[in-house]
C-alpha cells in the first residue's frame, strides 16, 4: 500500500465536483505484494496446465509423424531425409505454437489479474491515504471512487464513518467555540470568585480551548 509512487487522491479543500482521477499504467501495481501473489499463483497454474496439455498433444503428434515416416520410408527411400526433416519441422512448429499459446494464456491471465487486483488495490490505497490524514487528525472531504473500482460497499462504509466523525467533530468545534465565548463573557449573576488566579487560570484554559478549536476547524476544512 505504501509503495506507490504518488497519492492518487488528494482531498480537495473546498466543495464542488470531485476531480476525476484516471488510471495510469505505472500505478497498476499499487500493492505489489497483494497483487503479485494472485498473479504468480495463476501464472504458475496456467503454465502447469498448458505444459501438461502441450506434452500430450506433442506426443500424439509425434507418434503420427513417426507413423508417416515409417510408411513413407518403405516407398521413398531417397526422399526420406527431406520428409523426415519436414516432419520434424512440423513438430517443432507445433511446439512453438503451443509455447505461444501458453505464453499468451499466462499474459492474458496475468494482465487480467493485475487489472482486477488494481481495482481492489486502488480503493484500498485511497482509503489508506485518508486513514493517514485521519491519523494526523485531519477530517477533510472524501471524494468518491473511480468508475469500475471494486469494494464500493466498503468505501461507502468508510465514507459514512468519515462523514459521521466529521459532522460530530464540526458540531463539537462549533459548540466549543460558542461555549468559550459564553464563558469569556462576564456576569450573568455568578457569585463565584471571578478574579485573581482563578480568573487567569480560566482565561488561560479558555484560550487553550479556543486555540484547540481553531486548530480543529482547520483540520476539518
Amino acid at each position: 500500500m505504501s509503495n506507490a509512487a504518488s497519492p492518487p487522491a488528494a482531498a480537495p479543500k473546498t466543495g464542488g465536483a470531485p476531480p476525476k482521477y484516471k488510471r495510469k499504467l505505472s500505478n497498476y501495481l499499487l500493492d505489489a505484494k497483494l497483487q503479485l501473489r494472485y498473479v504468480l499463483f495463476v501464472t504458475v497454474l496456467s503454465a502447469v496446465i498448458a505444459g501438461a496439455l502441450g506434452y500430450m498433444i506433442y506426443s500424439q503428434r509425434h507418434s503420427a509423424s513417426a507413423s508417416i515416416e515409417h510408411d513413407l520410408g518403405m516407398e521413398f527411400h531417397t526422399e526420406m531425409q527431406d520428409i523426415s526433416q519436414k516432419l520434424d519441422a512440423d513438430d517443432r512448429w507445433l511446439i512453438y505454437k503451443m509455447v505461444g499459446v501458453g505464453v499468451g494464456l499466462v499474459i492474458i491471465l496475468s494482465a487480467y489479474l493485475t487489472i482486477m487486483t488494481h481495482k481492489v488495490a486502488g480503493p484500498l490505497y485511497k482509503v489508506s491515504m485518508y486513514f493517514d490524514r485521519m491519523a494526523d487528525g485531519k477530517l477533510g472531504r472524501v471524494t468518491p471512487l473511480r468508475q469500475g473500482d471494486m469494494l464500493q460497499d466498503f468505501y461507502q462504509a468508510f465514507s459514512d464513518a468519515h462523514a459521521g466523525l466529521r459532522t460530530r467533530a464540526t458540531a463539537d468545534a462549533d459548540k466549543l467555540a460558542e461555549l468559550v465565548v459564553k464563558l469569556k463573557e462576564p456576569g450573568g449573576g455568578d457569585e463565584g470568585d471571578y478574579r485573581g488566579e482563578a480568573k487567569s487560570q480560566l482565561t488561560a484554559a479558555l484560550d487553550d480551548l479556543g486555540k484547540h478549536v481553531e486548530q480543529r476547524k482547520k483540520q476539518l476544512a
Partner: protein
Amino acid sequence: MPPATDNRAYKRSWKNLLINKRYQLQFTLFMVGLSTLLMIGLGIWVMKEANEATNVSLSSELGTNCGTIEVIDDTAPAVAAPAAPAQEPAVPMATDGSAAPAPSPAPAAGSAGSAAGSAGSAAGSGDVVTEHHVKVQIEESEMVPVAPPPPPPPKLRNDLLQQIADHWQCKLVTSTNIDKLHAGRDRILWVMILTGLLLVLGLAGFGIKMTHKVAGPLFKITLYLGKMRDGRLDKVYNLRKGDQLVEFYDHFKSAHAGVVANEKADIAAIKKVIESAEAAGLGARPAVAELRAMLARKEKSLE
C-alpha cells in the same frame, strides 16, 4: 470491557467464506469465466490437433498390409495321378458312303481306330488327301465311357501355419495400435475435461479463499467504521493469522488512534476549562453544564 490484549482469536469458518459476496463473487466469477473461455478455446485447438494426428496415424495403421494367406503351393510340381486308360478320341462314325468331316490330325500311331479314322477321312476329301486320310468303314463300334481322372489333391504350402500366425499377428498389432490411437485421443479429451474442471473449481476455491483473506480484514474494519460513525471508539484488535491487508490494517489502526487522540485532546481541554470554571465559582453556569455533558459523551465514546 474488552480484554487488554490486542489479539482475539477468531477462527475461520467455511460459513463465513463469502463474507463480502459482491466483491468476492465478482472477482472470482470473472476469473473463472475468463479461464473457462480460455480453456474451451485451448481445448478446441488441442482436440483439433489431436484428431488430426490421430487420423493420420489411423490411416497409416489401416493401410498396413498384412498380406494374404497362400494356402496352395503353386510352385510345387503337380502330383502324378494314377495311370488312366488311354482315352480314345471320339471319332464320328459314318454308316454310309458320305464323307465325314475331317477330325483333327490323328495323334500318334498305335491306335487302330485312329488309323482307321485317318483313312476314312482321306477317302472323304477326294484327291486332296490321299495317303494320310484313309477312309475306314467301321462295321461295329463300341464306345466305353471313361470317367475323367480326379484332379490331383492340392499341395498345401509348407509355411502355411507360419503364414497364418504372421497374418493374424499383424492384424492384432494393427488393431492394438488403432485402439491405442483412439485411447490416446480419448485420454487427451478426458484430461482436457478434467483439467478444465480442475482449473475452474481450483480457481473458484482459490478466488474465494484469497478474496476472503482480503474481505475478512475489510469486514472487520467495516465493523469498526460503523462504530466510529456512531461515536464509539472501541479498542482495535489485531487481524487473524494469515489475513492479508496487514499494512492497510495498520493504516486503519493509525487513523483510529488519531481519532482517539483527538477525542482525548478534546477531553483534556474541556476538563481543564471545567476545572478552571469550577475553581472560579462558575460551575453552575449552563455553559459549564454543556461542557460536562460533552465531556461525558466523549469519555463514554472511548470506553
